């Protein structure tokens, strides 16, 4: 699905007063689904809102579908769909009323009734926006982003705070959008969301992209897999390391909790267990974990993502 970039951000800088929210950020997103991943305050929303034309860059350039989002806003707006992190609806409007309204602003909108059913908004009935549940408000915002049949959709934390069922419904819709040729830029701080949906992931921290690639590429970038086991504290990690292949690492993370990182295959597992046998160690727990985006993030930033 790689082709002409839908979003091209070069050396973007955005400051609010003395605070630098985005600090020389480069990002190229092609067709398909691109996840912008990072902790709160990393600059995700500022970056996306600059692409949507809300903010003027202090430095750098932004092109969305080849257009300048500020100077060519009129040409760009009909072609994009935007889901804000919150709000965006008259507090006295009903869900279907607002969705129908946004549909009327577009030349070839989706069938509103089908979209309402698809996103489970039919149950909102005559309830006005301010009395809808958080999940219903969010699904309405998602519907408003797609109803105009855009080429590119921006979703700012589309599943934050959703229950698992609603979350899955949102994911399904994103997959359908992708399958029908709609490009999606989504910000999230959920690793699994990025792994599930994205063709491409850009990890942002402190206003810069610190890594970008497919989820597989990013996970391969660090140690491939992790083997963890628990035993008595203070084992001789140096002796374990000698038994392991050269490209492996071993460490006692907390007393009694050990991690071996490297190419974890059956041979490695056998090596670790036989080392344990030789040293009279009974591992109470032994597990093999796939290296996740969460680990990548932790390695790159030294920070927990959901801090």
């Amino acid at each position, binding site marked *: 699905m790689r082709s002409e970039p839908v979003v091209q951000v070069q050396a973007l800088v955005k400051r609010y007063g003395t605070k630098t929210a985005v600090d020389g950020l480069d990002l190229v997103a092609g067709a398909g689904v691109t996840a912008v991943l990072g902790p709160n305050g990393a600059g995700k929303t500022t970056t996306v809102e600059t692409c*949507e*034309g*809300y903010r003027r860059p202090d430095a750098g350039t932004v092109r969305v579908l080849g257009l300048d989002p500020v100077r060519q806003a*009129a040409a760009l*707006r*009909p*072609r*994009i769909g*935007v889901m*804000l992190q*919150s*709000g*965006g*609806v*008259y*507090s*006295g*409007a009903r869900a279907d*009323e607002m969705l129908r*309204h*946004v549909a*009327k*602003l*577009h*030349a*070839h909108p*989706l069938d509103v009734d*089908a979209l309402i*059913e*698809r*996103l*489970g908004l039919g149950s909102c009935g005559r309830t006005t926006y301010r009395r809808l549940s958080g999940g219903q408000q969010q699904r309405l915002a998602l519907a*408003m982003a*797609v109803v*105009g*049949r*855009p*080429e590119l959709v921006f979703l700012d934390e589309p599943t934050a705070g959703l229950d698992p069922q609603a979350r899955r*419904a949102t994911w*399904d819709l994103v997959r*359908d*959008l992708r*399958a*029908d*040729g*709609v490009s999606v830029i989504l910000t999230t701080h959920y690793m699994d969301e990025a792994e599930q949906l994205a063709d491409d992931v850009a990890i942002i921290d402190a206003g810069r992209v610190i890594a970008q690639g497919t989820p597989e590429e990013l996970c391969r970038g660090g140690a491939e897999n992790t083997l963890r086991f628990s035993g008595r504290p203070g084992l001789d990690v140096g002796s374990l390391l000698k038994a392991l292949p050269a490209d492996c690492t071993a460490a006692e993370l907390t007393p009694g909790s050990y991690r071996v990182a490297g190419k974890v295959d059956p041979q490695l597992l056998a090596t670790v267990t036989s080392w344990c046998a030789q040293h009279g160690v009974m591992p109470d727990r032994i597990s093999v974990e796939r290296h996740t985006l969460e680990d990548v993030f932790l390695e790159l930033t030294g920070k927990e993502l959901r801090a």
Partner: protein
Amino acid sequence: MSTTTSGTYAPKPGAAPLGRMIAAQAALETKMLLRNGEQLLLTVIIPTLLLVLFSSVDIVDTGEGAAVDFLAPGVLALAVMSTAFTGQAIATGFERRYGVLKRLAVSPLPRWALMTAKTVSVLVTEVLQVVLLTVIAFALGWSPHGSPFAVLLLLVLGTAAFSGLGLLMAGTLKAEATLAAANLVFLLLLVGGGVIVPLDKFPDAAQSVLGLLPISALSDGLRDVLQHGAGMPWGDLGILAVWSVVGLAAAGKFFRWE
């Protein structure tokens, strides 16, 4: 949650024709206004009550002639202020606060078209108000004079002046501050703007200042025409024109969308 056939979401972007967008936006804004109880209190119930109450009970000395002949023009001015200034300021302030303006800003609807739609919505509401208040005033024995054209011009310029001030407030203050300030200003101008209390009840010094307020110019102009059958009240129209230019220019310059 049903599945959809493939191709449902295939991109087919485009803005609706401008006229259709503006009509849809104006219809929605008007619907939101008429659905809002507090807004109706301000735009319909208070002007109606004041008209009926002060026409039937002799509380304020309204000078010579039937009380309703003095009150109806003032209440029409109040109706314009309640919709174009107070109602619009509060509604727009909360739209700004709840991200409605932000969301619409990335829709195909241009900003000028949104403001046009808001104006249409204000005018539609005013027509409803004027019809209702006129019917009630006639029932109370009102006998208006003057040129309908002069009245229309006053109402339109009054709307422009109050819209500018209302949008200036909504676009610069927090929604809660707008709510409080818009209601306070409504009350102060109701009392001090010649709506139900004749300006000549105030001390001379106060009169000359109060006379320059948009509400005083509007109620005085309407009264000159409708009660006294005057021609074009150029002085009042001039005051309203100045307020319109200053208010709308300031709103255009200082309005913040987020």
